[in-house]
């Protein structure tokens, strides 16, 4: 089992409020990602779960037991750190053994030399060796066991750090940006490996990252945090399609969502630039933000009441897609439009283009940044 419940967690350092009354329920076997820009308090929240930091108020429950007063080492959680935090003076094997030795040997058996006289030690050493061997085979680090961390590459250290967390078979894994010290290619590769590892271990993962791509690709659910507040907790698809607020919409998705200034008239009908959405908002007679993702805009040859025009300022070719950074004619806005290479390869910097939106994909936000729903479909 590995359920974790956070109830009304707040944390402040002096007068700075870092976490603001957070409630999260993490299910057993779930891959939950805490995602948000740096400084949003996600690492602090993870450290509170781990027991390395004490919350100012609120409760942490692991498997329905209140662990507020339980020390980090007794919560049966394992953590993987951004810098891996391997013991630099110990071999990989000893690094993996350390958490097991501390858990299995008693104080007498840990003593150098005379500890070996304990009758039960041999048996325990045997089982420790087995666990270490099993873990190192799973992670394919068996041939590294006799090296020191200083002699390993970044990716290998990453694996050893994972191994040190895995040997203990904890109720949950806590990961604090474990991929951010790897190079781009390895990071993408490790994403899929972590997902596979999660599938085979079936243990709860709590994963902290500032990279929304990692959150979208790996997690069963993601919690978007900004400025110490939990803004949305849902599946990645739901967060992407249905963000609860403007900040979430802007944070999730790359390239960023385009935001237009729009208005709703007395009947609630929403329009922006010269384009009418032909749909009604629940808030009438007000200024609105209209969010449209780059893939929901198209470059077109048509020119009618559903299109608007602009000049291409920068063309970003990613091979599979081309993103056009377009200055809209009235100069108010710079937007990003996705184009497929086969249709748009002839468009270059400085061309003027007409842009059409894909219907039913716009998102409405009010002036406070909260989501506004359409009233008719």
């Amino acid at each position, binding site marked *: 089992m590995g359920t974790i419940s956070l109830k009304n967690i707040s944390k402040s350092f002096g007068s700075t409020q870092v976490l603001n009354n957070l409630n999260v329920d993490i299910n057993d076997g779930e891959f939950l990602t805490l995602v948000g820009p740096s400084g949003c308090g996600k690492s602090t929240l993870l450290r509170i779960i781990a027991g*390395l930091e004490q919350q100012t108020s609120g409760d942490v429950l692991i498997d329905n037991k209140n662990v507020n007063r339980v020390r980090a*080492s007794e919560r049966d959680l394992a*953590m993987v*750190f*951004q810098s891996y*935090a*391997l*013991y*630099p003076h110990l071999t990989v094997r000893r690094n993996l053994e350390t958490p097991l030795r501390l858990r299995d040997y008693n104080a007498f058996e840990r003593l150098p030399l005379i500890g070996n006289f304990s009758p039960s030690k041999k048996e325990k050493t045997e089982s420790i060796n087995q666990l270490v061997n099993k873990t190192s085979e799973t992670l394919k680090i068996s041939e590294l066991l006799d090296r020191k961390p200083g*002699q390993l590459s970044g990716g290998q250290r990453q694996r050893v750090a994972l191994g040190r967390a895995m040997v203990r078979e904890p109720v949950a894994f806590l990961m604090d940006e474990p991929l951010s010290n790897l190079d781009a290619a390895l990071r993408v590769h490790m994403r899929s490996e972590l997902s596979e590892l999660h599938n085979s271990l079936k243990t709860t993962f709590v994963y902290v990252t500032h990279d929304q791509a990692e959150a979208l690709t790996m997690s069963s659910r993601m919690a978007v945090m900004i400025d110490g507040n939990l803004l949305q907790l849902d599946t990645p698809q739901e967060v992407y399609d249905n963000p609860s607020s403007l900040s979430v919409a802007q944070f999730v998705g790359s390239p960023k969502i385009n935001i237009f200034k729009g208005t709703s008239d007395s009947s609630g009908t929403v329009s922006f630039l010269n384009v009418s959405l032909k749909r009604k908002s629940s808030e009438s007679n007000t200024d609105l933000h209209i969010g449209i993702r780059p893939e929901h805009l198209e470059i077109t040859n048509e020119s009618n009441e559903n299109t608007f025009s602009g000049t291409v300022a920068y063309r970003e070719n990613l091979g599979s897609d081309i993103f056009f950074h377009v200055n809209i004619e009235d100069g108010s806005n710079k937007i990003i439009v996705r184009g497929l290479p086969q249709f748009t390869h002839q468009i270059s910097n400085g061309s003027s283009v007409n842009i059409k939106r894909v219907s039913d994909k716009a998102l409405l936000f009010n002036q406070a940044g909260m989501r506004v729903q359409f009233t008719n479909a």
Partner: protein
Amino acid sequence: MEAKQYIGEGWKHAILIIGAIVVMLPFYMMVSMSLKSQQEIQSISGGLIGAQETQTFPVCVKTGYSEETCTMKPYQYNYWFAFEKAPIPRYLMNGVIVTLSIFIIQVLVALPCAYALAKLRFYGREFVFSMVLFCLLIPVHGIALPLYVMLAQAGLVDTYSALILPWTISVFGIFLMRQFFMTVPDELIDAARMDGMGEYAIVWKVMLPTAIPALLAFAIFSVVAHWNDYFWPRMVITGNRDLFTPPLGIREFRGGIDSDEFGPMMASIVTVTVPLIVAFIIAQKRFIEGITLTGMK
């Protein structure tokens, strides 16, 4: 261009060589005098090792040895007589006991202190650290008298304790190790806590191994200072020759009724200095290894 460079390098070397000579000259004199006879020393002749003529040494005879025993080459006589006249091995052993005890206890005290000051958050930490810095400013000689009085009250004068106890808390050690511990990443300590280590286990099993280079630097300071210390042993060791440390032992050769005998005196000084130089050379090698081995990140 090349020639110019050579001239520049030449100047640098010339200045460094002059500096080296100034530093090395006393050592040269010491070694040279420990090998030569009294006449050669006083007439400043004989170069490095003198003529090494076999002769009979009058002071030796006066001390009560037979003329036959006292007839030998000067270098033999100097070293033999130094060891005859004073129990130099005993002095060296005292030096080892005192400096090692001081260093070990200093480490036992300084490491947990430095760890707490660098990595634990507690009320009054900054105040405690400022007191440590403040203590760095107190000269030893300023508090020597009160210390002596306290030791006398406790009946500890003329014991090893008197030589060791006042030096067991090294604020310099605490400061140095604290500065080093500041550079150890917090994540390493958190990882150890997650693995189930207590705070003392973290100090000895995680912090100590990563701090070996800093510890060696501190060891050099501590051992050299207390091996060479003359002032404090002179104060607290008043009568018992068995407790003399090497610098006190050298004092035995100070001129007395036997008049000044520079040969044996210098021989004893060489004997006292050599262990320190050897230790330093070994430590220096380890010191450099230590720095290159720590791949923290």
